[in-house]
């Protein structure tokens, strides 16, 4: 070499805005969602669903359906139960929790409108649906338990008589001296907050294709799902197959948000029928089925009060949370987690001593509820922040100043909350300061005042939050659920010098694959486009929990980092063997083996990989190159690694029509190390949009008979482009020390805080009119009622 080679420096992709490589196929219409798949000899399933919220199934006549064109098989709950055993959705660490055995297809009794009572399998979906119309079911309607307020009354029917009552779970927290603290308070504010039951409305409905190969007794399930390994275990258990005989494949998933991480009876039925028939069976929910059988969430009524002292310091909070979860606790995560999170997280951002919380989780004849994005957080945050603004208003304090006085100090960590939550390191004050700067809070307040003089009612609402991320086994594993708390990453050095990464965490569009590629490329020392990532296949990826509770980057990313460290060390050992040099003096940068001091290139990685794969005969006999590695990571230092953040909403209320116009939204949050800011910001924006949906539009409306009134997307309103404001995102970074990567989760903080911010903004706008709303969604009708206009 004549010209001096400029030495290569280490490069990192961590912290870089890199567009996701896997988005390209989706942009070309080449995604592979479950319902895009076609298998030879496949058949289509369609379900007969109960029109009653609660009914005895007197008889089912399948005769005409069996004769219908294209029909291959028809069955009732008893037929499906031959292939699928029932389950009970409880966790042993929720003391006293109870639920009833649930069957894939109802037997004897339907317990919500939409529960499957019979199933048809035909050659086309249309034929299966035609035959569904020919099935005669004789129902004897039973009284429906719909109102959670009266679910525990002695006069209310008990949905599952063997359980004794309609109480699924109850829990209390009492720090002691709470009544005395309230007695000594300067100001006490009280509110009752109601939260409309809503649902995830993934644009891709739930879908499954199950293919059973009887000759090998092997089940392959293509499933839109967040946790393939969990589902593999459960299919094996309830279809009575060895786990090794079940493969679950989740390719592209059209939105999940927690909706696609549960056991759904119709999906279990499809897998069971595939086993009975030895044929591939396809099923995709239609929108009506999605609205009435996807899990619902967040039907809560919380009575709450807060006591503050003369200076505005919070002394005590008391809450009573009642939540209705439908007729069964959902398997295997249970429907008690949401309420449990509410009592765990209420008051979470604040430094105060006295807390009393009571939770009651009751059964009712509505669609089962379970974990949906930000599980419990939106309720806890709305209750806390609603009380905070109410107290500030009563004291005549600026809400930002009230928060500055009460938020846990940034220098007070580690900190244990009143409910026993342990915080490693949060940054509430840094986030508050940054938020107020981003939104130019003082100028906004001045604008608001100036417009009020002109009869324009604008409001500013703040909402501080904490978010559960990177959970340990204390979330589910400790309660006996076979849901992995760890994840693995396998890295394979290809002979070209490229790396294939297989990870247990999964992709539903949040950017998991891009995130993993950035970590691997940075640590191994190769261009990011030289990393190919494989997710969502239990036959190939390491066992792991998947993607939920904002754990993808924090858990899966750390496993990828540790695997990358090891692969790199192995590559350098190989290069040392090839070069007969001490690997300690070598480094791998931009796919080149370099001298680690000068950066001078000594060997291309592709050449090292070629020799390692094809010419190990040229290496010392005792040296075996290790070109595939696996590392597992589970977070062990904390029950959860909490993040924090704060949001602000700026709204204008039309006091004549009750309409709320969202003018702008801001969020500052701290998810530790950010691997890809572009992806994180869009997670936050998307999360905020879902929170805004809850605040203003979304509610599953039932009548007193348990009939869902708005189970179409024409009737159930979701945020569309025209309703959404622009959202300004800022960050503070406090990496967690529980991992080398330092990443915490960011998937749910947007949804956690947005409803509270919007509520506080509306109430700030309405304050001069002495009106106040606390029942979500904040519809025009509710606003006009609060204003005394209707």
């Amino acid at each position, binding site marked *: 070499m004549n010209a001096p080679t400029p030495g290569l420096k280490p490069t990192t992709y961590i912290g870089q805005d890199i567009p996701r490589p896997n988005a390209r196929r989706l942009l070309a219409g080449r995604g592979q969602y479950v319902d895009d798949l076609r298998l030879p000899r496949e058949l289509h399933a369609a379900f007969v669903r109960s029109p009653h919220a609660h009914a005895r199934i007197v008889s089912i006549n399948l005769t005409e359906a069996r004769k219908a064109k294209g029909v291959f098989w028809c069955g009732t709950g008893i037929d499906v139960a031959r292939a699928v055993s029932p389950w009970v959705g409880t966790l042993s660490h929720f003391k006293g929790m109870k639920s009833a055995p649930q069957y894939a297809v109802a037997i004897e009794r339907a317990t919500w409108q939409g529960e499957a009572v019979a199933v048809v399998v035909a050659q086309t979906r*249309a034929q299966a649906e035609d035959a569904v119309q020919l099935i005669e079911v004789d129902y004897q309607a039973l009284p429906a338990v719909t109102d959670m307020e009266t679910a525990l009354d002695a006069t209310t029917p008990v949905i599952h008589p063997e359980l004794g009552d309609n109480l699924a779970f109850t829990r209390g927290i009492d720090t002691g001296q709470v009544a005395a603290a309230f007695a000594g308070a300067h100001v006490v504010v009280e509110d009752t907050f109601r939260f409309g039951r809503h649902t995830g409305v993934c644009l891709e409905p739930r879908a499954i294709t199950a293919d059973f190969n009887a000759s090998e007794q092997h089940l392959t399930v293509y499933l839109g799902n967040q946790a393939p390994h969990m589902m593999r275990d459960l299919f094996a258990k309830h279809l009575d197959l060895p786990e090794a005989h079940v493969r679950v494949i989740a390719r592209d998933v059209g939105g999940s948000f927690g909706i696609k991480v549960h056991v759904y009876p119709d999906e279990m039925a499809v897998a069971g029928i595939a086993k009975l028939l030895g044929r591939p069976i396809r099923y995709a929910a239609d929108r009506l089925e999605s609205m009435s059988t996807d899990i619902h969430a967040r039907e809560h009524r919380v009575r709450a009060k807060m006591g503050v002292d003369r200076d505005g310091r919070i002394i005590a909070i008391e809450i009573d949370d009642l939540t209705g979860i439908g007729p069964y606790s959902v398997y295997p995560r249970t429907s008690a987690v949401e309420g449990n999170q509410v009592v765990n997280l209420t008051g979470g951002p604040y430094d105060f001593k006295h807390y009393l919380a009571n939770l009651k989780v009751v059964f009712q004849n509505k669609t089962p509820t379970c974990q949906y994005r930000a599980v419990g957080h939106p309720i806890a945050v709305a209750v806390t922040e609603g009380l905070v603004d109410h107290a500030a208003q009563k004291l005549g304090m600026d809400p930002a100043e009230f928060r500055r006085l009460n938020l846990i100090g940034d220098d007070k960590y580690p900190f244990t909350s009143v409910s026993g939550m342990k915080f490693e390191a949060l940054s509430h004050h840094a986030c508050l300061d940054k938020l107020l700067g981003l939104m130019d809070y003082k100028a906004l307040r001045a604008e608001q005042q100036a417009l009020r003089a002109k009869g324009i009612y604008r409001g500013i609402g703040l909402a501080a939050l904490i978010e559960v991320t990177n959970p340990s086994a204390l979330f589910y594993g400790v309660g006996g659920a076979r849901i992995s708390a760890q994840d693995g990453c396998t890295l394979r050095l290809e002979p070209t010098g490229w790396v294939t990464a297989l990870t247990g965490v999964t992709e539903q569009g949040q950017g998991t694959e891009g995130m993993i590629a950035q970590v691997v490329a940075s640590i191994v020392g190769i261009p990011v486009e030289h990393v190919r990532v494989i997710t969502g296949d239990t036959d190939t990826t390491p066992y792991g929990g998947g993607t939920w509770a904002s754990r993808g980057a924090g858990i899966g990313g750390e496993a990828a980092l540790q695997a990358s460290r090891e692969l790199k060390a192995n590559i350098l050992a190989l290069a040392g063997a090839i070069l007969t040099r001490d690997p300690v003096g070598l480094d791998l940068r931009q796919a080149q083996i370099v001298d680690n001091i000068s950066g001078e290139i000594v060997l291309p990685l592709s050449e090292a990989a070629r020799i390692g794969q094809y010419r190990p005969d040229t290496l010392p006999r005792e040296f075996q190159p290790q070109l595939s590695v696996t590392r597992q990571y589970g977070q062990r230092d904390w029950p959860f690694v909490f993040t924090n953040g704060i949001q602000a909403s700026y709204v204008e209320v039309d006091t004549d029509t009750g309409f709320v116009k969202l003018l702008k939204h801001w969020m500052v949050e701290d998810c530790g190390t950010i691997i890809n800011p572009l992806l994180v910001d869009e997670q936050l924006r998307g999360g905020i*949009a879902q929170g805004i949906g809850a605040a203003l539009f979304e509610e599953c409306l039932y009548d007193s008979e348990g009939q869902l009134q708005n189970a179409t997307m024409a009737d159930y309103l979701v945020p569309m482009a025209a309703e959404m404001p*622009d959202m300004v995102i800022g960050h503070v970074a406090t990496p967690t020390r529980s991992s080398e990567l330092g990443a915490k989760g960011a998937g749910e903080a947007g949804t956690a805080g947005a409803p509270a911010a919007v509520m506080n903004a509306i109430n700030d706008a309405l304050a001069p009119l002495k009106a106040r709303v606390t029942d979500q969604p904040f519809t025009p009708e509710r606003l006009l009622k609060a204003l005394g206009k209707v």
Partner: protein
Amino acid sequence: MENLITINLKVNGVAVTKAVEPRTHLVDFLRNELSLTGSHAGCEHGVCGACTVLVDGEIVRGCLTLACQLEGAAVETVEGLTESGAIADLQTAFHQRNALQCGYCTPGMLVCASALINEQPQASREEIREYMSGNYCRCTGYEAIVDAIELTAKNRAAGQELAKVKA
């Protein structure tokens, strides 16, 4: 079925002759008969826009259109628009801005956005939001989508200006 109707149409420039049941929706026809699975059925009510395709250059909902209505029509789907390169700049802008997450709405979103840019090349952000408000996205919160469309419209307008100057 008994009453099949034979239709002759062009799909992405290719002549297609098929016998369809009268009840077959366009989106099911494209997906099931032609394996064009880029268009998705989302709501089956014409509300979500996931099935948006072009019929004779106009955006239509594949879930509200019957295949048997399309005798002699020219249908374009995301697959065709991709292969012709007609929306390559829009796709790049969506990619760079991360204006998609799960991608299920994206084909319909792209078809609708390309019509918007053709019809209203100077559209403001508010007009973009209004025009796109028949296309549901649960993942993004829409801001990145509005950004990507706005950027593509501006780039196309600048490109046309440049072409004028050169001419």
